[in-house]
């Protein structure tokens, strides 16, 4: 696999490196082919690129100074958190600076009364909840990489987690961000008070994949830790029954704290890993969690059990202790590494679809397994329609990489055809940039570019990612002709 970044810049006229050296302490600047190597990719390791320099600022003043210098010299800048992202959003630009925010990792203020935490961008997601825990509070979004991923990265990607049906994504849990724009100006979006004067730029900024500004401080909302949580593990003879059960739970007026599905291939892969007691003969396993006061949880669990029974669950277990609840979750949370254990390589997709199309999607994926001669395991944030097919391949076998890539692209295109999206939580980054041409037409993409222009007129922040150029779409369109019609027929072909 390769990613061609189609943003090109005039070779830097001034002396970037000496300029950076003048602004930064020695250990905040990494230069040289070998030293920058660890930064060549993020969680999507198939794409690699080395930057001219890696800058690791200690404070906002250094961020401002570095951005001003790069702005003046016309040098692109790629911001990076912990590098756990799965779409190549933090892939360096060969002509640019990689800005790693990991040194800015203090919790500035934790206010249990106001239920807010003000943190620097390099603070890890889980570290916020750990700091809030003594006050009976936590930060709700819990992406599976939460041990390592940073809040700055979460803001860039609008990260979710297994509890986001009930508790929302990053955008629902962040009150304010402080941002340095590419020209060095600082803006505050949102505040500790509800809403903000003017346009909702906070909502616009969250999920902007590092293209609009660099976050230097984030205020997150903390919520009271639920008194109790219990999990139902239900197995089904068919994925369709399991999918219908998901719809039935929601139709019954229940919003579970978590609602996850795993197919047979996934449970077979994770069971030896975690010994959670998953039903290996089941076509699909549903995990449905309830949290709240003990009274609420008991009532909701009973209601969900009845619905699941009615929907033909072949067996059900309800966690009776916190230890057992975590064990039931363990397999779901270990799905990615478990697949990594049974296959030399895997490619994780992230499409979202309206839930009622799930059955169709899964059978389409089964036909694709034959078509591309590759296996695929499926885990599904069933509550919010976010599917993670894990396409297994061996990069050392001639042609498998390309087949995996085509397999993934076909899933994403089908997600769009079903009325969904090419990405629910991993972001577009470098990886899905071509599929953006399918989800949006030229006018819509142009609108996206105009937003970028309002924040970063020179187009220096994380260029070439997230929003494809129309030229790129024209070239991609030439490869995927739908029904004999070229997308973007109005554009010239090169």
């Amino acid at each position, binding site marked *: 696999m390769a990613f061609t970044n189609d943003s090109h810049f005039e070779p830097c006229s001034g002396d970037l490196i000496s300029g950076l050296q003048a602004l930064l302490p020695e250990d905040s600047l990494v230069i040289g082919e070998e030293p920058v190597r660890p930064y060549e990719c993020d969680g999507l390791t198939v794409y690699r690129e080395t930057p001219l320099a890696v800058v690791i600022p200690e404070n906002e003043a250094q961020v401002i100074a570095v951005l001003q210098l790069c702005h003046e010299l016309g040098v692109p800048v790629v911001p990076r958190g912990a590098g756990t992202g799965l779409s190549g959003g933090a892939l360096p630009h060969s002509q640019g600076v990689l800005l790693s925010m990991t040194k800015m990792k203090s919790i500035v203020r934790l206010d249990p009364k106001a239920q*807010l935490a003000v943190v620097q961008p390099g603070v890890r997601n889980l570290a916020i909840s750990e700091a809030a825990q003594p006050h009976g509070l936590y930060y709700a979004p819990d992406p599976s990489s939460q041990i390592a991923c940073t809040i700055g990265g979460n803001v860039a*990607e609008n990260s979710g987690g297994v509890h986001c049906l009930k508790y929302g994504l990053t955008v629902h849990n962040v009150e304010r961000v402080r941002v340095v724009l590419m020209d060095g100006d600082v803006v505050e979006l949102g505040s500790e008070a509800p809403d903000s004067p003017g346009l909702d730029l906070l909502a*616009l900024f969250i999920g902007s994949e590092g293209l609009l500004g660099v976050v230097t401080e984030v205020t997150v909302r903390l919520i009271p830790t639920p008194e109790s949580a219990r999990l139902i593990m239900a197995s089904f003879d068919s994925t369709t029954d399991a999918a219908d059960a998901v719809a039935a739970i*929601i139709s019954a007026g229940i919003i579970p704290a978590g609602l996850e599905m795993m197919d047979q291939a996934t449970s077979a892969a994770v069971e030896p890993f975690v010994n959670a007691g998953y039903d290996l003969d089941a076509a699909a396993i549903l995990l449905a969690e309830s949290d709240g006061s003990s009274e609420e949880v008991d009532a909701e669990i009973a209601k969900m059990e009845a619905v699941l029974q009615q929907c033909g669950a072949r067996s059900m277990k309800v966690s009776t202790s916190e230890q057992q609840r975590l064990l039931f979750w363990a397999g779901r949370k270990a799905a990615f590494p478990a697949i990594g254990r049974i296959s030399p390589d895997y490619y994780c997709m992230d499409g979202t679809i*309206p839930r*009622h199309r799930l059955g169709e999607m899964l059978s389409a994926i089964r036909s694709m397994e034959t078509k591309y001669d590759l296996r695929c395991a499926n885990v599904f944030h069933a509550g919010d329609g976010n599917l993670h097919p894990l396409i297994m391949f061996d990069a050392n076998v001639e042609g498998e990489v390309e087949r995996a890539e085509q397999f993934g692209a076909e899933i994403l295109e089908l997600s769009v055809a079903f009325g969904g999206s090419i990405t629910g939580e991993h972001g577009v980054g470098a990886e899905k940039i071509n599929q953006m041409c399918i989800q949006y037409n030229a006018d819509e993409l142009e609108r996206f570019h105009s*937003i970028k222009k*309002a924040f970063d007129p020179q187009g220096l922040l994380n260029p070439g990612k997230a929003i494809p150029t129309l030229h790129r779409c024209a070239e991609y369109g030439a490869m995927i002709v739908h029904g004999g019609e070229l997308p973007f027929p109005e554009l010239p072909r090169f």
Partner: protein
Amino acid sequence: MAANFPFPNSPGFRRTESVEHCIEKWQQQIAKAAESNSPLSIRGGGSKDFYGRETVGDTLDSTAYSGIVSYEPSELVVTARAGTPLAALQDTLAEHNQALAFEPPHFGPATVGGCVAAGLSGPRRMRAGPLRDFVLGTQLLDGNGRLLNFGGQVMKNVAGYDISRLLAGSLGTLGIITEVSLKVLPAPEYEQTQLLTADLNEARALMRSWSGKPLPVSATLWSAGELHVRLSGANSAVQLAAKGIGGETLEQASAQTLWRKLREQELPFFTTGDQPLWRLALPACTTPAKDAAINENERLLEWNGGQCWLRSTLAAEKVRAFASNAGGHATLFRGGERSGDIFTPLAGALLTVHQRLKNEFDPKGIFNPGRMYPTL
């Protein structure tokens, strides 16, 4: 099960032949306005005409473009055209025991498009979150008359910038919202309202103590020494919480009336006198520094103090200073001088970004110019 509504002949929906031609008509209107540099004033039911700065230009009426496009209760999403009456949409959701959790105020014959453009949330916002949290997708006509779709009908979608949420509360300054997809939630299983006697400081202390605990508080209202607390959720949890909170339990009917009147600003606090009504958005659960000029009796608090309504003839700069000293901002919500600043003024790079965005979406400046700020 998937229902695709060319919507029923229910009386709430005006569905005329013009629906099909609305977009085309509006595109022509936009082209004409752009050519002659004459502004358009986008209007739904006109229920929020009072809100924002004075509008100028020819009216672009959205009410003919009405109807629910799709509603699938088990997907928790409804898609409706901009001119759909908000009340009719809510009735449809109620038939399936679902609701708009942000409990939007109507202030009259509100439409769905106007509701989203105004971006206002009601009493339940303190628990459920603001309107913009529930916007999943929008269709928009921009200043070039192009029909654009952003977001969609799925809960999670991080492809491209979140333009749908940007449009929430944009007061029509970026374009004409033609269609909206909203996340809906099950209606609360059970609700109960408690009434306690408390002065402002006692009320603040009580609200602070509740908010730190996992209690099902879905709305709070403090006014003139009375604190009302609404609890929503499973019956057992509500009863238990009510016991802990104490006070007197309101009868269901009067509780419902109370919260509706609060939402619609029909309580005597809002309807008596002719002092301007200010909306102060403040960090919840904090106590703003004393300001003798801001009279306690002139205040009504919601959202644990996060939304403070003020009836006052004080000079605008004094009200704004009070709000900003407390870490918040003030909006001249009703009454007063409407040709000046209604919203807290923007400055510096933030204003520049606003102006650039406006210029990109609406290069000729034809959509509701000046409704939000003089220069937008």
